[in-house]
């Protein structure tokens, strides 16, 4: 029987809620494992979960330097979508979308996945043409996409300024109805519990300080809690990828770490019941179930390992919000924070074997990692278990830059701050 059910809720309510088990244990690390996953964020935890569930590999440790889910899985703006142009991205993110659609049931944990749609606003005729092209590319691969008129957008989001006198008048939009949001912490906790119950050790406060080698092969890690050996060592450390790779002796990567800020306002009555993106800048907004507006904008724009941002970007994001919603001018911002984004040179991720023998690499999520969480772990687990990529992540190699096989959805070139 499922651990969380109406019956277990009732039973525990009647017995004073004293019998709930912690969602995951706090084990000490063992001397060796079949697989070590470095990084206890969304991607690391989902990797461990699918290793156990899909491939029967349960002698696994997830090593997290802080507490579980303290990084980007708890810092994102929770949007889930698969509205990409290029087929490599579309196939991968659509696989993720399908996993999202069954995730609460699969995990027996309510991740509050809400398919409220994602609407990209167009402000010029050329942009609308571009959205039609992207929508057609999506539909060609079986993904839902609709080109929306201004009237329809006005009915969905009445608070939006769609008048001709708006700073950037809205001409239409591209809607993906199956897109939406999920409760990001629940995703981390659900995957953690699912992995833990299948035998995976989740070891928190355990920072990797070096790699153990036998010849050229990676055979384990040294950590702040001692040496741990493993047949396979998998990295899922997002913004810290450069730092961890340097511990392995690889000084240069096609990655820059940047800071991305996110914001939440005071609670309001329902005003935006979709995920809305601005087309004349970088701005996106949704509303949480508590009523807070959750929104974000562009990167601060220079290399940073500080999990906080600077004021010019705060100013820019607020200006963009007011360009869309003049009526929100007096809403107060409650909190802002920053997360480290591992920006690649083409804006697409890396999920691959290597680059060293015994090592597996998952990184380069730019600022789109949250929606990828299920497929990232699913594909990475496949790659670790089979020693070869699944067809969904086969294009996301590390050597694609050298080989000229870049996957640049925005067509920005090798300038990470623009992806």
């Amino acid at each position, binding site marked *: 029987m499922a651990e969380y059910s109406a019956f277990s809720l009732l039973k525990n309510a009647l017995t004073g809620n004293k019998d709930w088990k912690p969602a995951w244990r706090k084990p000490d690390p063992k001397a060796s494992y079949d697989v070590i996953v470095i990084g206890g964020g969304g991607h690391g935890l989902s990797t461990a979960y699918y290793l156990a569930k899909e491939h029967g590999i349960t002698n696994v440790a997830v090593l997290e330097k802080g507490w579980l889910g303290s990084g980007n899985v708890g810092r994102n703006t929770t949007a889930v979508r698969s509205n990409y142009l290029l087929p490599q991205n579309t196939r991968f993110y659509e696989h993720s979308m399908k996993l999202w659609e069954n995730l609460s049931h699969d995990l027996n944990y309510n991740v509050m996945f809400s398919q409220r749609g994602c609407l990209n606003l167009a402000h010029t005729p050329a942009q609308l043409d571009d959205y039609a092209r992207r929508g057609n590319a999506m539909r060609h691969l079986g993904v839902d996409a609709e080109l929306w008129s201004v009237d329809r957008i006005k009915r969905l989001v009445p608070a939006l300024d769609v008048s001709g006198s708006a700073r950037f008048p809205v001409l239409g939009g591209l809607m993906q109805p199956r897109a939406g949001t999920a409760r990001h912490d629940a995703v981390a906790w659900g995957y953690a519990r699912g992995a833990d119950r299948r035998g995976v050790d989740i070891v928190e406060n355990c920072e990797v300080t070096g790699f153990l080698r036998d010849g050229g092969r990676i055979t384990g890690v040294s950590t702040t809690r001692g040496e741990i050996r493993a047949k396979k060592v998998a990295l899922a450390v997002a913004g810290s990828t*450069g730092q961890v790779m340097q511990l392995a002796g690889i000084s240069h990567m096609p990655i820059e770490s940047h800071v991305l800020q996110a914001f939440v306002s005071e609670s309001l009555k329902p005003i935006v019941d979709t995920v809305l993106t601005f087309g004349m800048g970088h701005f996106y907004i949704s509303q949480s179930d508590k009523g807070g507006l959750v929104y974000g904008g562009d990167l601060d724009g220079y290399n940073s390992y*500080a999990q906080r941002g600077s004021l010019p970007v705060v100013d820019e994001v607020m200006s963009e919000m007011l360009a869309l919603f003049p009526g929100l001018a007096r809403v107060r911002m409650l909190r802002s924070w920053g997360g480290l984004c591992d920006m690649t040179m083409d804006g697409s991720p890396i999920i691959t074997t290597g680059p060293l023998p015994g090592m597996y690499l998952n990184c380069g999520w730019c600022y789109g990692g949250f929606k990828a969480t299920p497929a990232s772990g699913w594909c990475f687990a496949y790659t670790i278990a089979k020693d070869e990529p699944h067809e969904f992540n086969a294009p996301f190699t590390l050597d694609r830059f050298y080989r000229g096989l870049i996957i640049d959805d925005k067509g920005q070139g*090798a300038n990470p*701050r623009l992806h």
Partner: protein
Amino acid sequence: MLITCPYCGPRDVIEFTYQGDGNRERPQPASQNLDAWNAYVYDRLNPAGDHNEIWQHSGGCRAHLRVVRNTITHEILSTEFARGGHKSTDSRAEGRS
């Protein structure tokens, strides 16, 4: 964040455009060394700590600057004219500057 431009003095970061890693070495234009081009275009040092980087004072005197900045604290340790922009492996070009 304030960047001290050698021409204009301390100015707000919004006047500047970030041009990235200043450690990269641009091969000579005629070079057919793929490894060197790949390293120049795609590979980054990405340190957590002091970072040698190029900025342009695009909202001011438009000079290109070489800035050493800490990527954890955002403290700026030095600023100077970048001269040749990214480091060049062409010794003749360095001789001309």
